[in-house]
């Protein structure tokens, strides 16, 4: 068991290393460097020299990569090309804010999705299913900025129930983000719920049509007991992976939401950095996000392994 864990961790670490190389290489390949990108037209003479000194751009690529990677491990993400501020500082509370948004969306979306997914799976083709499945298609396919805009139109402009924009500063304590955070959370949760719902639904349908559910019926097990003891533990296992994938999506989708609602999170910071051509910041954010993604996937994999008896034995046997 431990060996399996270590193996997975090792593979996760390998992925993160490859990501870091891709990020670094990607930035390297682009014409120019961090300084010419940021300074643009002013990239010449003294300014350029100083910037390059500050960024340490006069060393070889390999050296710089190792330096960057090593520092990152220690928590030092370098300095922004825009004024030389420590990136770790800049990122600090932004990351926290984005995580808050993501966490709220997950807390709302995942239980709702699982509940609705089970309901629509069990009552397949009845009106409950039609309503929510159709709703899910809509929520899933419409771009987040569209649904965000629509929701703002309805709930903020027309009904005036919720604020349509976030004015709280980045370093404010968590409590101050409510109620402004509500609409963004709802939009995010909507999309997430739709994806997970559909997946849970098809998993529930598949399991309920399967052999062991039939056997349980023929063994005289009451319906609801079958659902909770026999079907759901099996049907919800794949949901773990879907939730992980959705979190991965979330890391991207949250960017658009943050822009629409002016939310002070990592996503908006990334957009700003890209617009400003502040490459070191972009690099750092990319690394953070990728690491979170890998971490989430790893957790999902491990959870699945722990909860699925078949996988547990399979991996144990490989020893």
């Amino acid at each position, binding site marked *: 068991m431990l060996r399996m864990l270590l193996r997975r961790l090792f*593979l996760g670490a*390998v*992925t*993160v290393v*490859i*990501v870091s190389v*891709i*990020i670094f290489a*990607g*930035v390297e390949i*682009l*014409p120019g460097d961090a300084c010419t*990108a940021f300074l643009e037209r002013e990239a010449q003479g003294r300014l350029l020299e100083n910037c390059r000194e500050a960024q340490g751009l006069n060393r070889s690529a390999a050296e710089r990569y190792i330096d960057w990677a090593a520092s990152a491990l220690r928590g030092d993400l370098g300095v922004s090309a825009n004024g030389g501020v420590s990136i770790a500082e800049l990122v600090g509370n932004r990351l926290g804010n984005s995580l808050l948004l993501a966490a709220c969306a997950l807390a709302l979306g995942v239980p709702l999705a699982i509940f609705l997914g089970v309901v629509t799976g069990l009552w397949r083709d009845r009106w409950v299913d039609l309503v929510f499945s159709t709703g899910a*298609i*809509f929520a*899933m*396919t*419409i*771009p*987040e*900025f*569209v649904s965000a*805009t*629509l929701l*703002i*139109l309805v709930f903020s*402009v027309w009904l005036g129930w919720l604020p349509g924009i976030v004015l709280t500063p980045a370093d404010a304590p968590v409590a101050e983000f409510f109620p402004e955070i509500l609409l963004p959370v709802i939009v995010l949760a909507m999309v997430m719920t739709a*994806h997970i719902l*559909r*997946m849970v639904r*098809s*998993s529930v349908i598949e399991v309920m049509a399967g052999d062991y559910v039939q056997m349980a019926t023929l063994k005289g097990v009451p319906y609801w007991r079958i659902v909770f003891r026999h079907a759901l533990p099996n049907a919800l296992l*794949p949901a773990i992976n*879907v939730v992980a*994938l*959705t979190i*991965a*999506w979330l*890391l*991207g989708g949250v*960017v*658009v939401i943050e*822009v629409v609602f002016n939310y002070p999170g990592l996503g908006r910071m*990334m*957009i700003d950095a*890209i*617009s400003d*051509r502040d490459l070191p910041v*972009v690099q750092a*954010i*990319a690394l953070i*996000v*990728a690491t979170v*993604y*890998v971490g989430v*996937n790893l957790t999902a994999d491990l959870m699945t392994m722990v909860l699925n008896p078949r996988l547990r034995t399979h991996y144990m046997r490989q020893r």
Partner: protein
Amino acid sequence: MSDVPIPMAPGRSRHVARWGGVLRDVMSRPSGAIGLTLVVFHVVLAIVSPWIVPYDFKAMDAALMLKGPSDLHWLGTDHLGRDVLTRTLMGGREALLVTGVATPIAVAWGGLLGIYFGLVGGRLDEVLMRVVDAFLSLPWILKMLVLIVTFGTGIEVLIPTLAFFYGIPVIRIARAATHDVVARDFVSAARARGHGRLTIIRRELLPNVLDTLMVEGAMRWSWMLLAFSSLSFLGFGVSPPTPDWGLMIADARGFMSFAPSGVLAPVVALSSLIIGINLTADALAKALGLDRAQKAPV
């Protein structure tokens, strides 16, 4: 097993007949009928709109800014006095052009690479999968923005960028589908006969993986449109004054409270296209007898 009855016609026309049957099956389902109609409608609209619009999409009329719907302007005007109806009707052109070209490229390159590695396996395959996983762990928006910001927003940048990044997940899917097919005996039989790899890919694997790729292609298209319009929304896609729904929504949302039609029109247009594609993909999957687990867009 597919529901589609397969007519007995020899040679090339058998394939045509099969896809004809699939088309009929798709249209017989409500999701398919609605979806396909929407898609065809939008494609036709994108092609003919320059000839049917009442106004020039660039024409600004300072006196008529942000007016509501009227006899002159059926959907009102935007913040620069341009006709909303015209811009909405033409708003899909760029999006459809870019995504319509990029999607087949993405599916083709991702698919072929995925099939090849699904068959060959080995060390290179393992390494490639790690790299693919690593790539997929970066948020799409980041990857694309970096390239766009460096190279510009013209379609000569957008098409390859979208095609490249959206082809990567196709590698995984094609590879997984290939694994399923390779496990079956007819592939071993072909190998035992002495057929070479390319022959096996062409004759045994591709025809069996094609269905999955077609459905995946439809989904890719919808996600690509989503990405494209999001990019436009953020200001990194289409440049003004070209009409584009994403851009229109971005421009108009500041004025939502008193000129909602400027936002609603492109919202309806964009949503109907994307929903249409999704419904079609769903119906296509059912017609081909494929089971699709929903995945988050990457």
